[in-house]
Every structure is written in structure tokens, then in C-alpha cells.
């Protein structure tokens, strides 16, 4: 035994010294969802009311050719409190909606422009109407409610129920034009998380010399196809096809930032919308103001409160930024489902990392 030991020992020592190539096995990041196809809206669940879906479809198409303006309030409830604003809305036919916040004591006034999705030929934003409405019909049971008055107008009520039976959202749709006048969204416990309603609304005839919407940077037009998404996943990008709580991917874009490529994935279940941005790198907090470190979904992240919630962290060489307009428990589950740094400080893990780093110094191609 001892005569062999020295030879074995020498071989073992040299094997250990030469082992970085063997020991180094980057943990394979399993693809979140191997399906490269786009999520197709499924058939309408039998519990939905066809008349309710027809009304919703009408509401999707209604703003396209109409010019209207009004004032509405918007409120969002979250675990940290409430955000409420009064906004002035002005819609330009076949263009989009300009929303302007009325100045309050806490937030400055500002204006944003949301382009129309339906029926804008050559528009930057593709037509999401049918797809996302299909998601709503697939994920919720949509039924007719009664009639109520909103901003002096008669409105038909459409309700969306979760499969478990709890009310998820309520829409008040103008009986004459089909416009969405009021909207309330509830979380699983039945608490209101989003509420918005027109306080006043005025329809008008569109003027030929209409005030043009203000200029804004063009959205990233480079859409990512399903096959390109599969290629990204093979390269190590996460790009999940679905997020928890039936949030389906309905849009994927890509943009070249000076810091590198950014992939923008948009998810919705028909009521909530979430955007996940992925970039290659390590999160640098120096330039971020107003963010605070917190713990969401069992992970250490940085959060900026507001609507949408803004959450960012980095894991395994990718920086994730999540902008979520969803219930808090949904946001927590989304954050939990995405990759996070698993800092394993065990002896073996540290030795592996150290060998990897030494190998990377020695091997210029590694």
C-alpha cells in the first residue's frame, strides 16, 4: 500500500493542479420554457358569456376612430400604501392617448403618450387587441353585470372572475360608444388593487389640424421572433415563455443600448401587465436614485415604489429589471421564478470558483 501511495499521490496532486478544466462545469441554466412558439390564446372557457366578450371586443376597438378628452382619477393600492393621481386624458384618433398628470403636492406634472394598438397601420405598436383579449378570456370567466352610471353616461358592466370564483376585475363600458369608462381590479383576497374612472368625458369631432402628439423616442421596433427567442435562450438568456399566475408572453423586443443588448419581454394575463428586461452584466447601483434594497420573493433585490413597480437585481451575469403592474403577491412570485444569485459559500463551491478564476487567468480563451 505504501509503495503505491507516493505514485498515486503524485498523480493525484498533478491531477488536482490540472483539474480546473475538469472541475469547472458552469451550471447549466435550464431554459425556463423550452417551447419556442408564441403563446396562442386558447378557446374561450365555457363559463364566459359571449355577450360580455363581444362588449369587451367592442371596447378594444372603440377608441380607434374617436376623438375624446376627459379627466379621470387613477389609484393603485400596494403593500406600502396608495398612489392616487388625477390625470387629463386626450385621445387622438388613429394615433394614441396623451395623459397628463395634474400637479399634486407630491409628484410633478408630466405628460405621456400611449400609442393606440388597434388599427394603426404601420404603427410602432403591433395590434395586441385580439391576442391579449384572448388571454383575458382564457384566464378568466367573463360575464355580464348590470347597468350603472359613470360620469353621467350609461355604462354596461362586465365582470371577470377567477376560475376559483373570486371577482378579479370589473369594467364599465359606455353603452353608446363602448369606451372603457371605469375599471377596478381586485387581488385574490378581494381587495381593490387598481381603480380608475373618468370623472368627466367629452366626445368631440376630430379637427383636421389636430394637435399632434408630442414626440417621444420611438419604441424599439426590432421585434424578436419565436425562433430568435429560442436562440437567445440557447445563448443563456432566460426569456421565460410564461410567468407565474398565467402571465403569458405577448411581445418580445430587442434593442442595442450603448451598454449592450437589452431584451424586453412583455407579459399579460389580460388584467396585469409585466415587463421583464434582461441585460448582460452586473448591476451597478451608483446611478440609481430613489431605489432601496429589499427582499421580495425570497431574494435580495432593489425596488422603486410606484406604479408600475420597478424591481432590479442581477444574477449569473444578467441584470433583470421588472416593471410590473400587478398584485403584490403576483410580483413576488414573478421575482421568485426568475434566476437569482445562489451564493454558495461552502468549501467545495469556493474551491471550484477559485479554480475557475485561476483557470480564467491562465487561459486567455476561457
Amino acid at each position, binding site marked *: 500500500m505504501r509503495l503505491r501511495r507516493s505514485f498515486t499521490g503524485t498523480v493525484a496532486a498533478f491531477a488536482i493542479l490540472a483539474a480546473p478544466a475538469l472541475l469547472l462545469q458552469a451550471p447549466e441554466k435550464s431554459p425556463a420554457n423550452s417551447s419556442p412558439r408564441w403563446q396562442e390564446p386558447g378557446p374561450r372557457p365555457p363559463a364566459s358569456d359571449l355577450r360580455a366578450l363581444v362588449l369587451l371586443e367592442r371596447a378594444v376597438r372603440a377608441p380607434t376612430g374617436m376623438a375624446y378628452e376627459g379627466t379621470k382619477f*387613477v389609484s393603485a393600492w400596494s403593500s406600502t400604501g396608495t398612489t392616487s393621481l388625477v390625470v387629463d386624458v386626450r385621445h387622438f384618433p388613429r394615433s394614441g392617448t396623451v395623459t397628463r398628470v395634474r400637479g399634486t403636492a407630491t409628484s410633478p406634472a408630466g405628460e405621456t403618450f400611449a400609442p393606440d394598438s388597434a388599427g394603426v397601420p404601420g404603427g410602432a405598436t403591433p395590434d395586441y387587441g385580439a391576442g391579449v383579449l384572448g388571454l383575458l378570456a382564457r384566464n378568466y370567466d367573463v360575464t355580464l353585470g348590470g347597468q350603472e352610471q359613470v360620469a353621467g353616461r350609461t355604462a354596461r358592466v362586465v365582470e371577470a372572475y377567477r376560475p376559483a370564483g373570486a371577482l378579479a376585475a370589473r369594467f364599465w363600458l359606455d353603452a353608446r360608444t363602448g369606451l372603457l369608462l371605469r*375599471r377596478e381590479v381586485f387581488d385574490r383576497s378581494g381587495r381593490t388593487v387598481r381603480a380608475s374612472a373618468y370623472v368627466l368625458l367629452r366626445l368631440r369631432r376630430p379637427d383636421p389640424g389636430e394637435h399632434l402628439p408630442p414626440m417621444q423616442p420611438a419604441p424599439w421596433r426590432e421585434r424578436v421572433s419565436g425562433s430568435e427567442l429560442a436562440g437567445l435562450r440557447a445563448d443563456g438568456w432566460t426569456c421565460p415563455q410564461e410567468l407565474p399566475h398565467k402571465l403569458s408572453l405577448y411581445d418580445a423586443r430587442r434593442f442595442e443600448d450603448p451598454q449592450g443588448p437589452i431584451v424586453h419581454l412583455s407579459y399579460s394575463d389580460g388584467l396585469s401587465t409585466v415587463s421583464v428586461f434582461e441585460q448582460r452584466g452586473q448591476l451597478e447601483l451608483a446611478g440609481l436614485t430613489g431605489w432601496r434594497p429589499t427582499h421580495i420573493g425570497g431574494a435580495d433585490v432593489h425596488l422603486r415604489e410606484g406604479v408600475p413597480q420597478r424591481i432590479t437585481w442581477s444574477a449569473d451575469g444578467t441584470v433583470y429589471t421588472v*416593471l410590473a403592474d400587478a398584485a403584490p403577491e403576483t410580483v413576488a412570485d414573478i421575482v421568485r421564478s426568475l434566476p437569482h444569485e445562489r451564493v454558495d459559500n461552502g468549501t467545495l463551491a469556493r474551491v471550484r470558483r477559485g479554480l475557475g478564476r485561476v483557470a480564467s487567468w491562465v487561459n486567455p480563451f476561457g
Partner: protein
Amino acid sequence: MTHLGDRVAALVDGELSHDARDRLLAHVAGCPRCREEVDAARQVKARLARLSVPAPSPALTARLLALAEPGEPIPPRRRPLRRLPRPAAGPRSSPRPQSARPAVGSTGVSTRRGRVAHSSADRLRRFGMTGAGAFSVAGLALGGAFAVGGQSGNTGVPLTPPVDRLEVEHAATTGGVPLTDPAFSSVLGSRLSQPATVANSGVLLRGSVGSVGLTPVQPGWLPTVAPSR
């Protein structure tokens, strides 16, 4: 097998460096299986030490004594590589040691045997030191790797996500989602570079706040639309 493998013998024999020995002892302290094996190795060593040294055979003794007598010419130096069969070099190399072959044979055997008997301790010590050195180097390498692999992370270029730009993109893709409120995706987060004025002339008031029938508003919200009717 155990975690220590062949290092058990080195540990029991005290042939490891300080650091390697301490590390192994630390592991053994916490690992019952390895502790058992080390104990077993220690017991074997103790038992071997207690065994009596066998006496050399008389033939060996006689051969050793014969070495002291003036003998035959010194045999040619054995080259280790020559032990390999060399068919081509047969006729040339054989005549020289031919005459001394029997003596060489006997003394060679005895020499070989003697060499074995004489240098076994040296060889063992040399092997032990090589093994100890190899394990020390390996231990140092692992220790260095342990130190270098401190905190994971720093695996990419440090960057700050352009959150303002991302908010605009989020508004662009969610604003078009029907039946969601563009105000939620755009207003409270993003801003344009300069606010434009929206003409508000001729706005008629259609209803009062009370007629909407809403849940009570939270403090901090100041309705600026005055109800009139």
C-alpha cells in the same frame, strides 16, 4: 471509499505538512467514517511495529559475508535501460560479462538483493517525502483556490439599467394592451422631456364625483375637478 484515500497512511505516519495534517485532522474530527479508518490504520501500524523482525536466512548471511572477501572484478555498471531486451545488441554485449556471468549472477543477485535490502528504507522515505510534497502542493493549491473563490459575483460588466428608457418601452408595449389603463403603465413612472400644454377649453362637466360611487379616496388625493350641477 473514504474521503481521505491514500492520505490515511501519510497521516498516520506523520508525513504530511503541518497545514495538510491540520486540515485532515479537522476533517477527521467531523467525519466518523474517516475517523474509523484512521483509527484502524493506527492500530495496524501499532501491530506491525510490535511484530518481531524476522531473522535473515543463513544463505543470505553467507552471501553478505562473502561480499567482504576480495572477489571478482567489478561488474559493468548496470544501466537500468539495458534491462530491456535488445535482440540486435546481443552478440556484442554478451561476451564481456560472459566470463563473469556466474559470479556476476550470484553477486548480481546478491547485489540486487542487497541493494533492495539496503535501500528499502531510503526508498520508502523518498516515496514518502514525494507523496508528502505532492500532497502539500495540492493542499496549497486547494487552499489558494479556496481563498480566491471568495465571494461569487462580479461576473460581468457593471452596468446601470436605463430605467427611464425602460419605462418608456414598458408604456409603449402595455399602453396598447386593451382594457388596461395606460395611466398605470405610463403616468406614474415615466415623464416626457418637456410637458406640453393640453387645451382644456370648452370642457363640460358631466357629473359630480359623488355620482361615480367610488370607494373612499385616500388622503393625499386632491380632486381638482369641482363638481357643479
